[in-house]
């Protein structure tokens, strides 16, 4: 995910669209089935606003440090498998951009639960929603692609395709060089 510098207006539409894309919902805010928990975060500081999301590193430190292989890299990027996550926060500690969060995570439409000892019943347990690793999955199950990109009213967000970025940069560099060479020839006449 890339943010066009200066374009973000800080409206939080990306966060809301992201949260809605990861739960059962209709077209309206009132149809959301639980409180919105996004996987990218709008950061505002001294006149600057930008949503920060997982950059899907190729040598992802979060995946490298995960003791249970709950965070892993595949062809679509870096993904978290909630069923394997133990909530140890090692990934959060090593993420260089702060994109990893601990949040209530749903698996197959239900919150993933953890068992904690019940002080009232010796040997007993109570179940409560677990706080697990939560991060951008590029809306991998959404055919239209990342919800945040489609929702941004300022057109500030785009999905980075590394090969495409390189192609556009190469082309721009080649054009600039050609223009400079042509200018030099004109001057030489």
């Amino acid at each position, binding site marked *: 995910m890339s943010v066009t510098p200066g374009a973000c*207006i*800080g*409206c*939080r*539409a*990306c*966060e*809301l*669209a992201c949260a*809605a894309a990861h739960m*059962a*919902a*209709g*077209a*309206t*805010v*009132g*149809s*959301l089935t639980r*409180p*919105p*928990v*996004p996987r990218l*975060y*709008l950061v*505002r500081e001294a*006149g600057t*606003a930008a949503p920060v999301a997982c950059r899907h590193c190729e040598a992802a430190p979060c995946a490298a440090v995960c003791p249970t292989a709950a965070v892993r890299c595949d062809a679509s990027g870096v993904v978290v498998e909630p069923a394997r996550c133990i909530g140890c926060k090692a990934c959060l500690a090593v993420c260089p951009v702060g994109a990893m*969060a601990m*949040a209530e995570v749903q698996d197959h439409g239900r919150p993933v639960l953890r068992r904690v000892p019940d002080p009232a019943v010796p040997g007993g347990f109570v179940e409560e929603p677990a706080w697990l690793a939560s991060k951008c999955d590029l809306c991998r199950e959404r055919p239209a692609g990342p*919800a945040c990109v*489609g*929702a941004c*009213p300022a057109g500030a967000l785009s999905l980075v395709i590394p090969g495409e970025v390189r192609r556009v940069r190469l082309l721009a560099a080649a054009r600039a060089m050609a223009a400079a060479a042509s200018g030099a020839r004109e001057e030489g006449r």
Partner: protein
Amino acid sequence: MSARPVIAPGVAPVIAIDPNLCTGCRRCAEVCPVGAVTGPQGQAQTIDAERCVLCGQCVQVCCAFAAPFDEPAHDPAAIRRQRGASEAAGPVFAAHARCDLDAAKVLVADPSRVAMVQCAPAVRVTLAEEFGLAPGSLTPGKLAAGLRRLGFAVVYDTTFAADVTVMEESAELLARIAEGGRLPLFTSCCPAWVRHVETAWPELTPHLSSCKSPQQMAGALFKSYAASLDGFDPAAVASVSVMPCTAKKHEAARPELRSGPAALADVDAVVTVTELAAWLKEAGIDFAALPGEPFDAPLGRYSGAGVIFGATGGVMEAALRTAVALCGEGRETAGPESGIVFTPAGPGVARAEFELAGNKLAAVTVSGLANVGPLLEAVAAGTADFQFMEVMCCPGGCVAGGGTPKLLPGVDVAAAVAARRQALGNHDRALPVRAAHANPAVTELYAAFLERPLSHRSHELLHTVYGGAAKGGHD
């Protein structure tokens, strides 16, 4: 604030922006049709209460929600409690409308009162969206059933009163033409539009139709005609409305919109579509599983003309259906529709020219208050070449109102509004009666109670004198 008279002291403003949540993105300022939202980029915005028309378009567009992970952290539940909003209402946003659910619940639960409810046409094509159905799902039967489950003794309908509005307003148009009254005639169904005329163009208020809006007509008839039919004391009637509109909350509180010898408020509490959805969820009512039930008679019987009040151009078409049928040149045989086709004449503006009762007339419809300026300038300059003007503040009409279900970011707003409009059109075409004057309940109302449009009694109950909103301010 200057020493303005306040309509309802101590009552929270209808529209507000929470400075703790506002991120200063200014999308609300962009969408405001009257430039009432001000503030620097990146800082909390404020609303100019004198200029605000309470349409709630800022509420619809705001995405700045309260989340526990914010720095500093927000407590959405505490904010909801502070606003009197329902736990079932979903996330809380910076721009928000006053929630009047508690007031409505008190009225319904009061054993000394008979709770009568009315729902605007747009409610039946938007409510289901809050339960996950696609935009524009048409559910009049489930709406009536849901309101009964919530405890309303009588489930009536604003759409009936829309038919009555057609009768009164088309008669007013014809009378103004015949008697050389103030023209062009402005529709007065949209309270945000009425407030804009009163606050920004006070010299043009005589152009407003003297008709109360359908919400207020329904309320006035609840506490007179309906009360007398069932032998209730008018003062014991609790009059609640469900609206797609936030400006209706202010309209209901206006002192000009009281009726009868006791000057009872026509409408005692206004809840929006989103508030009704939260109420149904709180009450554990499975909306999708509700059976289709009819509205109560007679003030719940409506025609297709009343239905299309919910979309831009609908009030005009509904009024023309009746005007053409009653005094058109044999057009009534052509079908229930007026046959008058409006063609685009600028952004949000459509125009038609036609003949009625021997007069060559022109009419315009305006969708979106931001588009009305040039037309008002022409009216003020005396150069307007039309006799009838419908204005709906919200682009697309009431189906896009500030009290309709708020669409998630990324959802195509134009497509959703079009689906809601389409659903109203389908509802109109499916109804056996499609013109207001052909609604048997309306005919009976006039025969038994009002005598005729613009009668003395109809003036007492259904008409008013506008011009007071500027004094009343932002309640």
